[in-house]
């Protein structure tokens, strides 16, 4: 047998060899004491009233509605406020006109240029009349 087992066995035996008995008088004392006291109940934690789910939803909806109203008011455009000028691209808005014009030769005399322009204008006028059947 191992030494530790021997020691443990000896300790167990010696503990059992201690002659002790609970006397009748002690037994009665303990019994009377136990009858005199009552076990304490576990402390009840304060119960917080549970709010219905409807309250939670109502408060949530109210909060969201208030936030929407505030955002709408902050972004509402005042009637007298001038409209911001939007730069328009006029060139892009107007359709392009295909003009058949010859470049002026600025080296020729002005009268000759004017005659040429009048001649071109008459030709164009005649062409238009023919096209429209007049």
């Amino acid at each position, binding site marked *: 047998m191992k030494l*530790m087992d021997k020691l443990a066995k000896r300790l167990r035996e010696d503990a059992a060899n201690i002659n002790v008995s609970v006397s009748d008088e002690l037994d009665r004392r303990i019994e009377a004491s136990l009858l005199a006291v009552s076990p304490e*109940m576990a402390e009840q934690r304060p119960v917080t009233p549970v709010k219905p789910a409807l309250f939670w939803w109502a408060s949530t909806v109210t909060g969201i509605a208030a936030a929407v109203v505030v955002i709408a008011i902050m972004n509402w455009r005042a009637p007298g406020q001038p409209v911001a000028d939007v730069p328009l691209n006029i060139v892009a808005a107007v359709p392009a006109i295909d003009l058949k014009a010859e470049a002026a030769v600025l080296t020729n005399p002005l009268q000759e240029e004017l005659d040429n322009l009048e001649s071109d204008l008459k030709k164009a006028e005649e062409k238009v009349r023919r096209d429209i059947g007049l």
Partner: protein
Amino acid sequence: MLRFLLTRCASYADAEDVLQDTLIAAFRYLHSYDARWRFSTWLYRIAIRNAAKLRGPDLLEVGELRDEENDPLLQCMADSESENLWLNARQLLNDDVFAAMWLRYAEDMSVNDISKALDRSASWTKVNLMRGRRTLESNLSDVPEQSEAYG
């Protein structure tokens, strides 16, 4: 438990009083019992506290209070023929180590239960159980000193 209390109290009457107080306290505060531990662990914890309370705030060791003639443990061993090892243990070990040894070998408690009962850490319990065993082993006259049979 009365046996154990006899080793920690100065008189038989004190041990009986502590036993009575322990049972009353256990009955009164039964709702605070944690079922994770053995019931005896909880009971011993209360008993150890009550015994310490009876000794007063000076925290004298049990041996300092004991009167050899009225020693309750000696009285209970008067009829025994052989020497009781617990008497040696009480002389050689301090109160907490003695209690740990008692709970381990007389009550078969686990290290965790002993730790809980004594309000000590598991490592403290293991170390002091080992020290207690070595002290008692060296005290045993029929055990060779050089033996190394520990686990």
